[in-house]
């Protein structure tokens, strides 16, 4: 185990750098709520792209990809990434191109749904969005507690409180600008270190030819096969069906799309996908090294175990910095998304009743919300919930939102009631067929991937059938969204 004093020092130095970056980014902003929460159309393409890459790279992109490759072998090159590739190319790219064109003045998904499908659907999207951002942040902060405890022996509670404090301070200082600015610094740290650690680990392990021979003679007899029935049903299909909405439902993605300059959406989404795709693939290589070398560890710990074993102390320190940057970058995006949803979708419309406010007071309210949310995230993370359970629960919570949203963007005569009931019944189905069995709380009624598939079919089928039999009047997108002023309805 590494020296715990160095662990504390690393976290504090990391925090000071992030606070300095947040202060610098804040000076570039305007003094109003829209800029604090949205930084609308003010960020260049490289900055938003690196921020989005680092939002998409979280602990699971490295550890989960390596774990899958450790279990299934060479399928680990592509099975983790396919879900995000499909989500980006088939859904996010056409959706954001259209949404940014028809609704340039909004900045959140619930805001879009309020205008398109009404208050009832808006409330569900807002509440689920808030829960998603909150529990994803809890998941990340729980992970930093685990990582710092395993690597440095720092008590879980201490690492959780320091991690949450760092993120809360810099997001409260600069809002979305701070989140994006610190993401860029975290992106640089993360990618430079990964670009050193992964090739060096491969070289120390003997190179690709030796790894291949190790895989061919490993305990997994199908390790050199690109696909098997087990890898397709146990990994590929579950991954595609649970992450197909990855690139469109998360508020952090919406914020970065709207913070980028108008007309750069396609480059942003496609460029980010191109940059992100090789990251889980090369992380999978570490899992394959573990399998080829016969590592006997918990599969979820294979990434740090291989790097720590083959590279020694410096590899473990590099691993610590990689994990801190990965986890805190996603946490700050979640905290920012959470505060944006609470202020924009709950506080302003339902508590303030959209009455005008002094800009300074508005920003003060937003900062208080950030601080309260940061405290809430730290408190929940102290409870040490199962990361696996949170991952499944959050994924399935948002599953049924996918199709009512996608259909509402493209179908002018979508039946609003059918879309609402598709959302409700699809969510219940995902809970029973995917979340609870996925977390091991009940016996699976059907295989997990079929549970996800049924929930998708319900969430898409009910709105489609409802529209087929009872279409609504044609919705006038341009007219409806042109009534929205920047920063609120």
């Amino acid at each position: 185990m590494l020296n715990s004093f160095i662990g504390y020092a690393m976290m504090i130095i990391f925090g000071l750098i992030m606070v300095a970056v947040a202060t610098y980014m804040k000076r570039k902003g305007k003094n109003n709520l829209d800029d604090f929460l949205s930084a609308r159309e003010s960020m260049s393409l490289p900055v938003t792209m690196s921020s989005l890459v680092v939002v998409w790279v979280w602990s699971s992109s490295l550890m989960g990809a390596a774990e899958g490759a450790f279990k299934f072998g060479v399928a680990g090159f592509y099975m983790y990434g396919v879900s995000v590739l499909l989500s980006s190319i088939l859904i996010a790219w056409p959706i954001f191109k259209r949404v940014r064109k028809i609704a340039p003045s909004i900045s959140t998904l619930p805001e879009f749904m309020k205008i398109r499908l009404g208050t009832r659907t808006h409330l569900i999207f807002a509440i689920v969005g808030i829960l998603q951002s909150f529990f994803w942040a809890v998941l990340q902060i729980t992970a930093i507690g685990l990582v710092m405890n395993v690597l440095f022996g720092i008590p879980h509670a201490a690492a959780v409180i320091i991690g949450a404090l760092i993120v809360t301070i810099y997001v409260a200082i600069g809002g979305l600008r701070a989140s994006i600015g610190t993401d860029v610094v975290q992106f640089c740290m993360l990618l430079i270190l990964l670009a050193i650690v992964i090739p060096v680990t491969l070289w120390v392990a003997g190179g690709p030819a030796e790894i291949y021979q190790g895989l061919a003679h490993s305990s997994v007899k199908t390790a050199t096969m690109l696909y098997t029935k087990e890898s397709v049903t146990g990994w590929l299909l579950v991954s595609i069906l649970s992450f197909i909405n990855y690139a469109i439902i998360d508020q952090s993605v919406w914020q970065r799309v709207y913070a980028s300059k108008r007309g750069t959406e396609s480059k942003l989404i496609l460029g980010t996908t191109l940059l992100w795709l090789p990251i889980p693939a090369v992380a999978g290589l570490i899992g394959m090294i573990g399998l080829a070398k016969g590592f006997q560890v918990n599969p979820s710990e294979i990434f740090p175990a291989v790097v720590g074993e083959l590279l020694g102390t410096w590899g473990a320190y590099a691993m610590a910095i990689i994990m801190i940057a990965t986890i805190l970058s996603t946490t700050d995006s979640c905290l920012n998304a959470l505060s944006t949803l609470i202020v924009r979708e709950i506080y302003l419309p339902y508590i303030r009743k959209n009455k005008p406010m002094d800009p300074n007071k508005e920003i003060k309210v937003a900062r208080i919300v950030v601080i309260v949310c940061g405290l809430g995230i730290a408190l929940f993370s102290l409870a040490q919930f199962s990361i696996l359970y949170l991952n499944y629960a959050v994924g399935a919570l948002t599953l049924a939102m996918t199709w009512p949203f996608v259909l509402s963007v493209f179908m002018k005569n979508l039946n609003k009631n059918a879309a609402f009931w598709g959302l409700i019944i699809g969510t219940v189905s995902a809970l029973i067929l995917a979340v609870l069995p996925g977390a091991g709380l009940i016996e699976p009624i059907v295989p997990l991937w079929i549970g996800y598939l049924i929930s998708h079919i319900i969430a898409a089928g009910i709105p489609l059938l409802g529209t087929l039999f009872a279409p609504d009047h044609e919705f006038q997108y341009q007219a409806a969204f042109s009534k929205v002023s920047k920063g609120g309805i």
Partner: protein
Amino acid sequence: MVLSESGFVFVTYTLLTWFIVSNLTLVFFCFKDWVLGFLKRT
């Protein structure tokens, strides 16, 4: 379908090159963006 040894070696080096070149290029553009922005302000 089995991935051959030469295929594995090729995929490994292609992915590593793609990963390093694409991401370090973006790191370069981010620095350029920030340095130019900083110089414009000062």
